């Protein structure tokens, strides 16, 4: 069993190789640079360093969003095409779950992974570890940070906020949750591709052809068009 995990859904670009029960290679950068240029060379280098060839891979796991539309598509396109080319299973995992997984392992409360979605909005969800499994308490969603904070305050549990974008909303969470708001350290802010591999390790393969990113949001033109249709239908 050799799993290749790919995450390009936000600024952090990550690739990991999970072989038998070990993470044999992991590559992460957190740079605002073109993922399209760097992801395939990163995969190539990691495989080479780990003395694996593409034919050795037995499964592809990819972060399927939410995140940057273009970023998510790059990883998903590569993952789909590799899985199809090599005729091996493809598994998609929430990009937010990947970010939450590491910090959630040793944290008693809930973990809220954060990707900024501009104009006061965040992509987030709520996770915790239960019987050795990462479990979603609240589903992945797009919400205003000011709406998310009071919702979490009602849980009456410590909430760990994690992600490189957290500082953009830190005051909102501090104001909403007081001492229940805990903030992750710099070393925990990047989603770990090894966690992605681990999350997808035992999941069954999905249909490669129908596999698509989870954008959470409709394309803007699509949303406007649907709104217009609704108006026409409702008179």
């Amino acid at each position, binding site marked *: 069993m050799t799993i290749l995990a790919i995450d390009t859904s936000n600024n952090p670009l990550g690739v990991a190789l999970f072989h038998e029960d070990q993470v044999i290679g992991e590559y992460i950068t957190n740079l605002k640079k073109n993922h399209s240029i760097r992801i395939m060379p990163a995969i*190539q280098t990691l495989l080479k360093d780990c003395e694996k060839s593409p034919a050795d891979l037995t499964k592809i796991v990819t972060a399927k969003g939410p995140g940057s539309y273009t970023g998510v598509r790059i990883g998903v396109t590569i993952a789909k095409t590799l899985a199809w080319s090599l005729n091996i299973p493809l598994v998609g995992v929430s990009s937010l779950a990947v970010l939450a997984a590491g910090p959630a392992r040793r944290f008693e409360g809930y973990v809220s992974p954060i990707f900024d979605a501009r104009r006061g909005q965040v992509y987030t969800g709520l996770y915790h570890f239960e019987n050795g499994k990462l479990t979603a308490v609240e589903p992945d969603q797009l919400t205003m940070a000011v709406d998310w904070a009071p919702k979490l305050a009602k849980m009456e549990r410590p909430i760990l906020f994690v992600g490189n974008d957290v500082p953009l909303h830190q005051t909102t969470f501090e104001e909403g949750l007081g001492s229940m708001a805990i903030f992750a350290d710099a070393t925990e802010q990047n989603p770990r591709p090894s966690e992605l591999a681990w999350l997808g390790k035992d999941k069954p393969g999905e249909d490669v052809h129908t596999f*698509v990113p989870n954008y959470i949001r409709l394309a803007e033109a699509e949303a406007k068009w649907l709104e217009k249709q609704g108006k026409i239908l409702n008179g």
Partner: protein
Amino acid sequence: MGELMKKDQLILGIETSCDETAVAVIKNGREIAANVVASQIESHKRFGGVVPEIASRHHVEQITIVLDEALKQADVSMADIDAVAVTEGPGLVGALLIGVNAAKAVAFAHQKPLVPVHHIAGHIYANRLVAELKFPLIALVVSGGHTELVYMKEHGHFEVIGETRDDAAGEAYDKVARVLNMPYPGGPHIDRLAHEGSPTIDLPRAWLDGSYDFSFSGLKSAVINTVHNAEQRGETIAPEDLAASFQASVIDVLVKKTVDAVEEYGVKQVLVAGGVAANKGLRNALEEAFSSLEVELVIPPLSLCTDNAAMIGAAGSVMFDKGIRADLSLNAIPGLDIELFNNDDLS
């Protein structure tokens, strides 16, 4: 001594620069073993044009389906493929990225060479699927995004001798179609309507003397003004006559400039490329203009004029033979320059 059997060259071509997800398999640069196109046009029609984000989403939905279908149609496996050719640009960046990354993944998975292809080089090489190219030649490229005259002294060498300074011809068609309340894409509708009318309305022709460049924005404005002025006077203009007049103006300029270039450059062949090459009015006018000249005119069938991957495979075959390769850092380049591919040192 028996002659060694030369193995067929098979190129996998991938094209996703706009709103068609396309994959083809091309044999020996000239034969179509498979040509699969998943068009998104029905999805974009409701918006009156291609929406980039929606195009990108559809490409992700289609890419492996189309790849799979192309290999099945050609009855080959990736092991039989010699190289993967992909459109590097120009085009919509988000759309191009899907093809480029899929091409890199499939090339890496099977350790195949990767060949970057310029979209317009692809349109030009669609002609090689119809007739062998004879150099030197001139290609008239007319599509929704391009209006260019390209001179080729040999395979894989492109010199742009004239290009549009504003709108592409296809763009002007779409804009005029909107004025005439026709659905997107407007080109085929105007072409059809033009055949029912006569060019009775006097519209300008931008000759830009001394240059092979084109300009269609003045013509587009003249059409819009003609319609508005008539409306203000309470008159109606027969749309078929307006369509015929507009089309006559576009075609006059395209044909005259092509004929001039052919004479000046003394070429053996004229190729027509791009989606507007499907236009009947343009085809007829070019056929008439070149019937008396000692130069061969090649116009590909409709299915090879619009965006497809067979043309990328055909161009990719020539680029592959020239030794042009990309590594896995290949990126999508929305404003890619065709002359960068000349790479004179390699040929």
